[in-house]
């Protein structure tokens, strides 16, 4: 045995500004190389922002340069220093991309890294060959870094104007197909506007310039108005809330009217969004309010879908030939039962273990559904086919837009229920349970009842979603009910904000709607989800649209933690800032 146990902390020299800047450049460069190697850059570049000028992949590379510059400028004290550091960081990031191009030129790695294709090489070097391309990459990186640093140092008003202009151009360019469609359906005036901004294949150069100017002017005016308002009186609590409600109302109104203008494709996208909103609200009851991290959530979705399928389908496996409106309540009831049955065994399991246990339960359901054992009942891997569309009177809800309205109605009902639950005695019991199970029990919360209700009600929402999902696809397959769905739903309520109803809508639009619109995004959306989970947990654990209670709690918790210096596991100073946030 060694005589001394000391594994002593090594003392590190603090990094000099130069080292820090080089580090920032390297990190951003690595991000760029990573995006290229997983194939995101070439994929994004298939969509152009401005026709024949700049693709979304190019825009991403420029954004990386801007980001490097802005980050590097953060540490500099003087203005000149900031620009210099920004320039350097951008150049380093560009050099990393150039290095990738050099490596690709020297050795063929495509047999291992399948994305390092000649097409990527052309994209990186802009078709100028290795030397020219490398020079452009480094020079462009430096220029972008410089711009980023300047942007960071410029007064906030100016910065906001430039960013608003750029952002609007990117949005207008990326979603050109959709915007053109809406503009052309809306009327004569908007049709001519569409012809001014867009050529038939995308945003034209003059259109981009015009949009930039318009967006910048609007942002400038908006900033001026706000500054004047801020000068008069600080906005009262009520007005802030009113404004929030107004914004939510406008968003909802847009959601409701949009598919009528934009046609069936957008209807389908929004229907999926609505479906995930339903499920998100269900999981929100479990995770957001009651603090029960349930990764087997997809099982309830599957129960809803299979029940509807078996009760209505025109196939050999069907148990009955009910209409959709009769089958749906049964599906929801059965989901509740399954939720409670799931809940009972895991009543005593807490925290991390609960997540794994529920995930195991979900996997068990999936294994059973796919196996030969259950095949006579559930159709095995082939699933149940030919589910009729629901009908109201004589009209069949067959189009995606019609089904979207069905989803919307279901979501509205569910949202009302969830909203009433949140402020009910039960909702408070859930929140107490989330914060401390033992204390909640000591205060008289019936643990068994409230936990089972959380599972049951959460399952009801998912079951309803599953039921709609079944008629949307007209068929159910076991492969539709993977763990992925549970994770998707979890990701969307985390992005939106745990325990927040509007957060579910925001999260669903951002995580389901956006990737669905960028069709070529395809499988990369899951990469995006993984990154989003990590980044949100690090930077904004309360979500994009947090509930009031949650926000207050999180900040109170941070203060308590900062005070609790006794449990300091880290070397002093290194992470003091992250604890104090």
């Amino acid at each position, binding site marked *: *045995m060694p005589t001394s*146990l*000391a*594994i*002593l*902390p*090594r003392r590190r020299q603090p990094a000099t500004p130069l080292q820090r800047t080089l580090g920032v450049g390297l990190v951003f460069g690595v991000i760029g190389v990573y995006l290229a*190697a*997983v*194939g995101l850059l070439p994929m994004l570049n298939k969509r152009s922002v401005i026709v024949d000028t700049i693709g979304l992949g190019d825009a991403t590379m420029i954004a990386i340069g801007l980001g490097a510059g802005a980050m590097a400028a953060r540490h500099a004290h003087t203005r000149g220093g900031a620009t210099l550091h920004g320039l350097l960081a951008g150049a380093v990031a560009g050099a990393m991309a150039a290095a990738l191009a050099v490596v690709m030129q020297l050795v063929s790695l495509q047999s291992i*890294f*399948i*994305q390092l294709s000649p097409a990527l090489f052309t994209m990186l070097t802009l078709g100028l060959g290795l030397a020219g391309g490398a020079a452009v990459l480094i020079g462009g990186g430096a220029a972008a870094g410089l711009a980023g640093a300047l942007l960071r140092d410029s007064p906030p008003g100016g910065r906001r104007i430039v960013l608003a202009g750029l952002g609007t151009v990117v949005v207008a360019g990326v979603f050109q197909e959709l915007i053109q469609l809406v503009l052309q359906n809306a009327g004569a005036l908007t049709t001519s506007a569409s012809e001014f901004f867009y050529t038939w294949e995308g945003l034209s150069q003059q259109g981009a310039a015009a949009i930039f100017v318009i967006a910048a002017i609007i942002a400038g005016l908006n900033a001026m108005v706000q500054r004047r308002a801020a000068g008069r009186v600080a906005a009262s609590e009520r007005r802030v809330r009113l404004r929030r409600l107004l914004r939510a109302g406008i968003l909802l109104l847009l959601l409701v009217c949009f598919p009528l203008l934009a046609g069936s494709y957008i209807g389908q996208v929004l229907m999926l969004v609505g479906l995930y909103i339903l499920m998100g609200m269900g999981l929100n009851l479990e*995770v957001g309010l009651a*603090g029960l*991290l349930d990764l087997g959530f997809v099982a309830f979705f599957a129960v809803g879908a299979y029940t509807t399928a078996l009760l209505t389908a025109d196939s050999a496996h069907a148990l009955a030939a009910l209409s959709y409106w009769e089958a749906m309540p049964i599906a929801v009831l059965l989901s509740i039962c399954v939720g409670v049955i799931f809940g*009972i*065994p*895991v*009543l005593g*399991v807490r925290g*991390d*273990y609960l*997540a*794994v*246990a529920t995930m*195991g*339960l979900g*996997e*068990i359901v999936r*294994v*059973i559904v*796919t*196996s*030969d*054992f259950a095949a006579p009942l559930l159709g095995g891997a082939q699933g149940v086919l030919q589910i009729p569309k629901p009908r109201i009177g004589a009209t069949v809800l067959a189009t995606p837009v019609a089904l979207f309205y069905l989803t919307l109605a279901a979501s509205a009902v569910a949202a009302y229920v969830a909203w009433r639950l949140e402020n009910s005695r039960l909702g408070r019991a859930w929140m107490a349970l989330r914060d401390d199970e033992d204390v909640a029990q000591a205060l008289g919360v019936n643990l*068994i009842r409230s936990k089972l209700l959380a599972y049951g009600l959460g399952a009801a929402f998912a079951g309803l979603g599953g039921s709609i999902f079944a008629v949307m696809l007209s068929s159910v397959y076991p492969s539709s009910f993977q*763990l992925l769905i549970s994770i998707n739903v*979890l990701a969307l309520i985390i992005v939106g904000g745990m325990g927040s109803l509007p957060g579910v809508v925001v999260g669903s639009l951002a995580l389901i709607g956006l990737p669905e619109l960028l069709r070529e995004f395809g*499988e*990369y959306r*899951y*990469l995006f989800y*993984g*990154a*989003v*989970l*990590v980044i949100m*947990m*690090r930077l904004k*654990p309360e979500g994009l649209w947090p509930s009031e209670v949650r926000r207050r709690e999180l900040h109170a*918790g941070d203060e308590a*933690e900062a005070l609790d210096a*006794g449990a*300091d*596991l*880290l*070397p002093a100073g290194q*992470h003091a800032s*992250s604890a104090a946030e």
Partner: protein
Amino acid sequence: MSATTLTLRRFNAVDVILWLLRIGVLLIVVIGTLATLIKARYTIAQWLDFVMFGLTIGSIYAQIALGYTMVYGVLRLINFAHGDIVMTGAFAGYFAAAGFDRSGLLESRPVLAMAGILLVAVLTSTCIAVLTERIAYRPFRRVQGLAPLICAIGVSFFLEQTFRGLFGSSVKSYPDPSWLRAAFVVFGFRIPRVDVLVIGLALVFMALLYMVVQRTRMGTAMRAVAEDAEAAALMGIDVNRVIVFTFMLGGVMAGIAGVFYAFLYKQVYFFMGFTPGIKAFGAAVLGGIGSIPGAMLGGFFLGMVESVGPTLFLDGIGIPAPYQLRDLIAFTLLIMVLIFRPQGILGERMARKRA
């Protein structure tokens, strides 16, 4: 109120259901086993095959479970991405193995090639394990609640999808050298070489790991941190370095396990780490999370149950194609352990600390 009514009141409906669940599972196991044995549809050689496979897969689970248990010991964190770190090792090993296969080294110099494959796999998985710790887990050291676990789920997803992006979503088949395909014959029973190799090497590496944890300075420091991180920090132990070291050890075991798993199933793909990862977590809990011998024991036990179980328990009851329900048995075991004995077999001490 008398004592009997009190006990009756405490004994509520949920307990009844839980007892019924226990009895039900026990009944299936006992009746199924008896029925299968009475029917005697399987020969001794077939049972031996099941047992050998159980030991082989169990030794892999044991190695993966070690990673979970060690990280949980020092950080109280379920490293949800550990299964995917296994996957990264298997992938790296695949590219090495495919290279050696093309150059003929895999056939001509098996020992050298195997060492090379393991080295590449271990280096990759260790680097990724340490990187994930640095980037994703370190900021959550002092955060309570669900945030660290959710972050870990995100890491797991991110790793899977990164590998899908880098190397494609197709299933790649591992090279199958002739020296691995053969089998030893003992008393007339066939024992595949790959099983012997996997079990033997796994035992060697686990013994080495045990020595490292028990005998070296760093291992001692690791145990001290697992016991009480604050006190260890006060004794002058650099907790950060110990945690990085723990992730390194876990990464090494994961890389080796990944290569073995890939050699056993002859394929790699980006999602391959998920199922063995979850099962190995179950094995770690089964053995008592935080306990190193427990993880090894739990891994072997889980492997045996999973391999022998479907046939032994389910065939007798007349369930068709029981091997399809292998995962069902493994997950049922996992859930039963989490529900009824979260402290595991050897984990009394850890359980008390958790409570």
